[in-house]
């Protein structure tokens, strides 16, 4: 799961040239005062920035719900997700999806996105609408294997859309007998 090390290193200020006169001391005090004021202002601003972030997240959530209701109502909604098999060294370059013969997604992966997939992230590659009933899904995966050889596979699946929102998960693996596995949720 998502974890980051928050390592705290203690600061030790060691000064090589530490000869200060009284005049410098006065100046330093002023600078210190100025810094303290700045820090206080920054903290105040930081609080406000945190608050506006929270408000904008609230707007985003409501807007997302509105968008789903308007553009992808549950009766027709289908979402397709892509994941990499755990520990698979495949360098995924691109994924193309066709639903009932229509190209619905063609995605080319950046380094960052590939790394996120390798660490267990799941990409929602397509969100759209289909009628209830059976549908044909064609998946084309392009990439490179660990040794540098080209990897290209095409698989065809059928999924059934019911009244509730449909989620289809595709797991891609460069090794093993199942290069593209379908999981329905």
């Amino acid at each position: 799961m998502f974890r980051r090390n928050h390592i705290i290193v203690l600061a030790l200020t060691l000064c090589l040239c530490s000869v200060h006169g009284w005049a410098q001391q006065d100046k330093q005090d002023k600078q210190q005062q100025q810094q303290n004021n700045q820090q206080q202002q920054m903290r105040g601003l930081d609080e406000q920035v945190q608050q506006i972030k929270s408000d904008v997240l609230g707007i985003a959530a409501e807007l997302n719900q509105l968008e789903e209701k308007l553009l992808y109502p549950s009766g027709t909604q289908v979402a397709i997700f892509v994941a990499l098999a755990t520990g698979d060294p495949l360098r995924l370059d691109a994924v193309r999806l066709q639903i009932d013969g229509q190209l619905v997604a063609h995605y080319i992966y950046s380094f960052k996105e590939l790394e996120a997939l390798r660490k267990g992230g799941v990409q929602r590659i397509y969100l759209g609408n289909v009628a209830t009933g059976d549908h044909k899904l064609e998946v084309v995966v392009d990439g490179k294997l660990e040794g540098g050889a080209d990897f290209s596979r095409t698989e065809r699946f059928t999924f059934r859309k019911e009244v509730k929102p449909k989620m289809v998960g595709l797991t891609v693996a460069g090794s093993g007998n199942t290069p593209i596995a379908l999981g329905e949720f």
Partner: protein
Amino acid sequence: MGGDLRDLYFGEALYQALQGRFFDAIQRLDTELAMHHGLDQPGLDTLHYHVNDAEFDVGDFELNYRMHHRAGRAIKAVLEGAVDESVRNEAAFRLARIHFQKDQLDDAQNALARIHGVVPAQIKDDVEFLRANIDMAMGKPGDAVKVLQLVHSDESLAGFVAYNLGIGLFQDGRTREAIDQLDKAGRLPAADDAGLAIRDKTNLVLGTMLFESGDFERAKQSLDRIRLGGLFSNQALLRAGWAEASAQKYDRALVPWNMLVEREPTDAAVQEAMLAVPHAYASLNLHGRAAIMYGKALDQFNKQIEKVDASIGSIQEGRFLKALIREESRQDETWVIRLRTLPDAPETYYLMELMASHDFQTALHNYLDLEDLQSRLMTWQTSLDAFGDVIRLRAQNYEPLLPQVDAQFRELDSRMRLRLEQRRHLAQRLQAMLTAPRPDFLATAEERIAGERLALIEKQLGDSDNPQSLALRQRVARLRGALTWRLQTEYQERLTAAHVHLKELNADVETLTRQYDDFVRTRQAATHSYVGYDAQIAKLRERAADALERVDSLMDRQGKMIETVAINQLMARRERLVTQQTEARFGVADSYDRAARTQSGEEGR
């Protein structure tokens, strides 16, 4: 799916977070958690398998998105929920870490005090490491040392533990032990970039401590262990030179210093080396060479002062903020370094120096976050306009069609209800006939008509004793008997057939009900696609506009704050450069003077 992932949307939140898109990650996971907690039976939801991780992760995402308040609230919610001991302990640890980062040391210690019993193995060392850091920050280095001495961490944390232990010993007044500990820490193997960086830092601190205690040889050895390409290499080269110079080995001091003066001239260590090099030459009585090097330093300081002035001017003109928010400049982690090399962008020359300041970094991150919020809000305003259009067009399309469709549907609906009622009635009758046989119910239409005609004839014949009537009554009775015989003997067969037919009818009714439901859903969807959004959209539009106004105002203030911090730092830097310029100017004159005197002395001899 990869691994044990059971909830795709949780996986999607991780996907966003792993790319540093914390806003999207929080938004996704918040929505998922809210939906999960709103369910009647959350145990049936796929997020149920990850809910503890999700609660922690949303706090982590918020922390990474610099939303400490919300992160604290999220983790407190876990802490106060009905969770396992190990989960509660992890929550207490995370809460303590947030308090520590916010400098709330008592709260941090209280949070750690809530840890009892089973501590998850993966955070055991982190807990003790944090405990020691809190002790140090509270001015109790002795306690910190006791804690750190018991931590046996893996390679990823070992360098940090060893370094902090050294600093703890030093602050506790145990200088000799501190030096030994830092010496050990400075030789530890490093697993990654962070490990290499802390090892470099350890050696830099150790080198400085040894230098200050007059142990120049050991100081140099420690400084030599710092990587030449690392973050601390400029400082290391500078101090290594001073270690040699302090031991009167000026020729050896020139090796690191000459290497340093070739580096980026905006770096403070490089600028200091520019004066140190001629100082070393002068100490070696190479006054001519010293004069040339002082001259070069003077040129460089003049140029740097011009650069600082240009930077300050450019920042005052507002160009600095524009440079910071350039999209292409934030594509990778080296953007700060690359910004400095942009031609015709004096505002960014000293950016690396500014980035070293924590205040500046906080202000900059907030500014960049605000800029991101601003662009999101502006995009959403366009989206809301588009939604308004979609709704208007849908209304135009559906409103003329729907009344006619509804009228037809009402007619079909009443017919359908009638038939369904009939079917229900038949089913009830058949069910009753299983226990109370009623053969007459299973008569065909012909048989029913025949029975009714016989009853009519019987009625017309009356009770007359007329022989003709008697004969006719007998015939009627025979026919009635034949009819009854048929109904009675065929009853079981007919009942079975009736049940079979009813079952066949069930399939048709099922198809009909499905079509009916489909129609009702589609009809509802048609209405839902354009009715009832106006108030929500208007409210969202208002909220977005209000948020945008606040973001603009905050950006303005935050931007001014960045400019002020930058200008203050650059002014301080300028002051230092002016002092160095004066020293260089004096050095040039002094060196020429000494060179001339040396030369005249030689000529005199």
